[in-house]
């Protein structure tokens, strides 16, 4: 028995790909099954790889990219090998297709609250390299969090540019502009370009001459941090994969969607030394509110809706 995970980029990005691969490895190890990693496949056609992995005897194919959610179910039907896809809650099929729609919006909301508390200039920025749904929901939740904490804090939203996933220079340039517009905390989402954002934060001074902080998503960049990482909305996908394996064994695969959230710490805010303990305590309290349902955070996936939201919060 083995499971396979397919990712668009190499699993060394301290982000989406790495979290997926690491989680799959952990889940497989826990369940005592073999794991096959197919990484760096790009965003093109992965049907050849899916078919080959199926033919090689994988009993679960995890198609870890929203770009794979058309091809993977098709191959599942063709080869009768179960697949897991992302961002497609409507695509469930018993025994064949399961969905895990991951959104760190709850965590992003907390990150927004944190940013608003910590911002000296009362201005924070969101820089993204593109507008896929999972990022949109986090951008929106972050902005909501900021406004919930303090309506006076300004939120600036900027998308880097065309095909900007690897545009590190663009990430740096746009982030610098956003900092110049007054922001002293940057909430950044991007693949390769997020390293450019990090670089901008490290080398640019805020309006008051102090440090600019960076809030990351999905992964934990602490190993490469130089003291500018304020936090990160870290995802832990392992419980999701573990549940899938369990469901597969229990023959209940494809009957439910998996997700991550604050409740089981599959989404959590990263605590760094830059966060004062009192602030952290407040955030932990807010976390409880979200878990208990006292505070409701609804995901917004649509890019236009996110932009509309940003415009309204900017006023």
């Amino acid at each position: 028995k083995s499971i396979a995970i397919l990712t668009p980029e190499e699993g060394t990005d301290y982000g989406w790909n790495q979290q997926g691969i690491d989680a799959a490895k952990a889940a497989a190890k826990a369940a005592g099954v073999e794991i096959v990693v197919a990484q760096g496949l790009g965003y093109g056609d992965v049907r050849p790889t899916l078919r080959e992995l199926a033919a090689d005897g994988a009993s679960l194919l995890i198609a870890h990219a929203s770009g794979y959610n058309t091809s993977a179910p098709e191959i599942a039907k063709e080869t009768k090998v179960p697949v897991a896809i992302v961002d497609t809650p409507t695509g469930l099929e018993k025994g064949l297709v399961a969905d895990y729609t991951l959104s760190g919006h709850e965590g992003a909301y907390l990150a927004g609250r944190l940013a608003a508390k910590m911002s000296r200039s009362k201005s924070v920025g969101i820089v993204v390299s593109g507008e896929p749904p999972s990022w949109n929901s986090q951008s929106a939740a972050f902005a909501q969090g900021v406004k919930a904490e303090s309506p006076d804090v300004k939120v600036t939203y900027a998308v880097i540019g065309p095909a900007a996933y690897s545009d590190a220079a663009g990430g740096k340039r746009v982030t610098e502009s956003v900092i110049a517009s007054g922001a002293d905390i940057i909430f950044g989402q991007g693949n390769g370009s997020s390293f450019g954002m990090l670089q901008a934060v490290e080398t640019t001074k805020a309006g008051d001459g102090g440090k600019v902080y960076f809030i990351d998503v999905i992964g934990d960049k602490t190993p490469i941090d130089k003291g500018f990482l304020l936090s990160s909305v870290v995802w832990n996908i392992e419980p999701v994969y573990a549940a899938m394996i369990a469901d597969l064994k229990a023959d209940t695969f494809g009957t439910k969607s998996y997700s991550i959230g604050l409740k089981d710490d599959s989404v959590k805010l990263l605590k760094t030394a830059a966060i004062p303990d009192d602030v952290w305590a407040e955030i932990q309290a807010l976390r409880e509110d979200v878990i208990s349902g006292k505070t409701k955070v609804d995901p917004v996936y649509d890019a236009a809706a996110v932009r509309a939201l940003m415009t309204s919060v900017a006023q």
Partner: protein
Amino acid sequence: MTGLFSEVFLSALLFGAVTAAIPLLLAGLGEQMSEKAGVLNIGIEGMMLAGAYLGFVGAFYSGSLWLGFLTGAGGGIAVALVMALLCVRIGLNQIVIGIALTLGLEGLTALLHHFQFSRSYPRLPAVDVTVIPLLSAIPVIGPALFRQHLIVYLAVALVFAMGYIYRRTQLGLNLQAAGDKPAALDVAGIDVVRTRTIAVLTTGALAGLGGAFLANVGAGLFIPFITNGAGFLGIVLAMLARGRPVWVLFGALLFGVCLSLTTAMQVAGINIPTDVIQMLPFLAVMVMLVLFGRRASLPAALGIPYERGAR
């Protein structure tokens, strides 16, 4: 909302425009030199990538940005050497080799990055700027244009140096002859292959420098595919510029300004889909093409390998 456009923000935008323009400028100037001499250098994207990678490696390990620029230029030259050997000396098809080099360098630099940096993602410290007294005190423009790294001023100076070379030196004459009528240059006693080789190597140096600037100053780090088509934009700028270096500068700046404009519009919260806004730089160049493209006459022997005495 207009309060948003503070002086600091405006000058940051302009600063960003210049930073984005410099790699394009260097690539464009380089490509222009090759084209003048009759070589269509489609491999410039590969040269930039080599420059970006080696430039970063040099700067990172030595801690000196200048050494990084040097190794970056060296990387570009190394790729250009292959191109010169294959396309100038033995006359292989320039488009085939150019594209092959671009693909190869994309793969190679990504590979090297994977083995070397994909766990640590090293980044360079902030860039030292050279402040030009008085001028830098001008509001908005001053901090954007006159607080740049020395290499930026040098790149702009290069524009005028190139203009001087093309119009006022024997070398300029040689280059133009190599592109327009290589046989005439040959019988005048100047080696066409050598002239073109010099041009291609210069292109490599400039493209490599542009790549190094992109990695070291523009991004402060190297990641795979970092050039994102900058080399191809350089080709377009060079062709649009009709042999005049100043026009490469204008074109690169126009492009950079358009990029900053897209940021400005977003920060201003204008609710137009970002994908639409982001077509702006390309639209701007396309409009330039429609307006001025007609006069973009290219050298007569562009793309044709020269062989002495062939007919």
